[in-house]
């Protein structure tokens, strides 16, 4: 019995130490990467390329499903993005509300004859393609199709796009005006490595002021839950993704804001409709594809916040979202399990993918098992409470240090949360996260895994949104 108890102790200790070492190394890499990016970006003035004719063309593809409340303002927002060679495609994914009618009326749309889409990408059947009669909106295309889910709608948009690059986003995202100019930069700078995906940081704009579809004034969310997610996003985007980008190991470009070369996406058959984690899955598939072709490639991350979204502000919606993310992760890891410690895929197979298995997929499972062990050990009276309390304080403080470091890096490098009061509120949210939102997140993730293990049929889930404060 003693051997089992010691074994369990050492397992959790080793896992915890390894996880903290990884996080610590990631912070160091993120600091180096942020500094490097800051220095390089001084030479990359977007004004230099605004009038250029050699820029790659970009299609912005935004699927919309029952977005009637905000569709018009969002389309205006997306139309106002600064980029010389840019098309906007809204894919109405079989909405049951009046989204399409609103768009037809507002933009004076007319149905146009079907034109050929790329046959290499499958999607649900298209009911009609609309273009505006008003020359002002000649770069706007609305594709009305049968409902098939987000991935299917994106595939449809990609199949009909004729541009070099495709930017996949959501119709309810607020995109910064110069976002495209910044996002194409890695593609313009590529030399020996082909850029196969580029992602930008996503910010949370709950309770912020939106005017004419652009972010007028950024405010901290009033809801504690949304505020915690601000910290979570800063930590994930600034520390996690920046560090992985520095190590050439970025495996995820967020579905809400990702730019891809169209030909490469078509080569791999587009987004996978059978997973709810289509963004992670596509990125891993693109990377595997390039590994198989033995061509040098890069997945790039831009640390500036270029896209704003609304985060769940109620626990119900939050649980739905995290449950879905957990299922998406499970499905993707399972689908690509052949990569696990596969030397054929070099560092992706030997380091990056195993990291995702052990620490992204594994962390909630280990945490959940830890809680079970805690209960069992308590029942049998095997816990040394003073040591357990001291250990808890140490672990908690390490967590606080990681969050504080993330907020510090953000404050130093970006202007969005520059006010002292905002920083204090973020720090308080970060320190309370472990007691309030983290247990709920763990519950949602375990719920998602449970559904996958016991093959319980589940869908995307309804994401009820409050909507932005508009002027």
């Amino acid at each position, binding site marked *: 019995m003693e051997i089992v108890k010691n074994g369990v102790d050492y397992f959790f200790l080793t896992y915890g130490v390894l996880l903290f070492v990884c996080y610590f190394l990631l912070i160091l890499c993120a600091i180096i990467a942020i500094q490097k990016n800051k220095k390089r970006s001084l*030479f990359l003035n977007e004004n230099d390329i605004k009038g250029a004719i050699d820029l790659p063309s970009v299609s912005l593809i935004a699927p919309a499903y029952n977005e009637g409340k905000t569709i018009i303002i969002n389309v205006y927002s997306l139309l106002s993005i600064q980029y010389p060679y840019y098309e906007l495609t809204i894919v109405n994914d079989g909405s049951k509300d009046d989204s399409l009618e609103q768009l037809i009326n507002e933009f004076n749309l007319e149905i146009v004859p079907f034109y050929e889409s790329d046959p290499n990408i499958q999607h649900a059947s298209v009911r009609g393609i609309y273009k505006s009669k008003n020359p002002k909106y000649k770069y706007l295309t609305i594709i009305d199709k049968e409902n098939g889910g987000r991935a299917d709608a994106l595939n449809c948009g990609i199949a009909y796009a004729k541009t070099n690059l495709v930017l996949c986003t959501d119709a309810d995202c607020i995109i910064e005006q110069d976002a495209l100019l910044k996002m194409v930069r890695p593609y313009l700078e590529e030399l020996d490595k082909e850029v196969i995906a580029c992602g930008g940081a996503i910010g949370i704009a709950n309770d912020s002021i939106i005017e004419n579809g652009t972010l007028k004034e950024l405010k901290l969310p009033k809801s504690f839950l949304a505020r915690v997610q601000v910290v979570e996003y800063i930590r994930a985007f600034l520390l996690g993704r920046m560090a992985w980008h520095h190590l050439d190991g970025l495996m995820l470009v967020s579905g809400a804001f990702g730019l891809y070369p169209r030909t490469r996406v078509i080569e791999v058959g587009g987004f996978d409709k059978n997973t709810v984690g289509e963004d992670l899955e596509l990125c891993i598939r693109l990377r595997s594809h390039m590994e198989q072709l033995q061509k040098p490639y890069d997945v790039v991350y831009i640390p500036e916040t270029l896209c704003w979204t609304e985060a769940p502000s109620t626990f119900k919606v939050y649980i739905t979202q995290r449950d879905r993310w957990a299922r998406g992760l499970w499905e993707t890891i399972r689908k690509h399990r052949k990569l696990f410690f596969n030397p054929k895929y070099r560092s992706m197979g030997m380091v990056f993918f195993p990291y995702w298995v052990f620490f992204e997929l594994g962390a909630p499972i280990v945490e959940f098992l830890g809680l079970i062990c805690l209960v069992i050990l308590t029942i049998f009276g095997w816990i040394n409470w003073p040591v357990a309390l001291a250990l808890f304080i140490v672990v908690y403080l390490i967590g606080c240090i990681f969050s504080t470091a993330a*907020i510090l890096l953000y*404050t130093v490098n970006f202007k969005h949360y520059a006010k002292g009061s905002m920083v204090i509120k973020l720090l308080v949210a970060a320190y309370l996260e472990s007691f309030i939102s983290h247990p709920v997140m763990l519950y949602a993730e375990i719920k998602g895994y449970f559904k996958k293990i016991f093959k319980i049929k589940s869908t995307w889930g309804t994401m009820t949104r409050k909507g932005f404060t508009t002027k």
Partner: protein
Amino acid sequence: MVLEQLLYTVAIGLLLFLVFLWIIIGYSIVIREFRYKTRSKIDAFFIEKLSAEYMKNIALTEQTHFEKKQTISIKLKNKRRLQYASNILIRVQDAFDSENQEMIVQLCEENGISSAIDRKISKRDWYPKAMAIWLSYELDLEGNLPHIKRLTSHKNILVRREAQIGLVCFWGWKSLKMLPHLKYPISLWQQIRIIEKLVDYFPEPDLTYMEKALKTKNPYSIELLIRLMRRFDLKAYIPYIMEQIQHPNSNVSQTALEVLESFQLNNVQLQQLEAQLMQFTLENQQLKVTQFIALQRIAIPKETPNGNS
């Protein structure tokens, strides 16, 4: 007990580190505020200086509003302040083209910007070096040209990129003669910037140097040249562009095709293109050429043997 004590010692260490992080956050917020105020002061200083210079040439009656004495003084010794001040002058330069060139150079000299740039360009570290080159050509400080010329083949990508763009800014079309000698790749970003600098500062093409540049074998230089041909609508070089369709580097052949799409080809040229198509082996290029020809055929009515449409 020992373990417990050890853990509490670690916890105290961590807590101290956390406090240290709070202090840095607080410091960064204060310093940001201070920097903001300094920058406002630098802005005000240059607004005064520039408006005073501009008003010299304006009738006396209009001048009265601006005839205040210089009230603001600043010290630009700090690296960040110099950088900020330089950026202001670059923006002024961009807004007013080259009308006020002498004034900008004078302001750079008076406020220590020129001497700081001179010092930076000789540094070993790539970052200040590249920054100094960038500032030199953006502020048109021609005195640094001898340094810049030497750095066009520097091992650091940013230094050589900025040096090459700098040469374009100072020499214009003459700088194209460096293309046959370039060994390193040129990114699309750099190509675009070179083209845009030529468009802005030297809108009249000088084909003497273009001819010299055509000797290049570097695929990236060829790509740049054919993009230049499109930007300046140099129809005389269509045969050269068509030749590049068969270039072994797929980027060059693809760019050549894209560039040709913006020219209206005649039937002879289209037939030549079709003949070239037959020699292709790569499927995607073949597809693209087919599409291109189809597009062109639709665009231009086919000529009959007797010359009628």
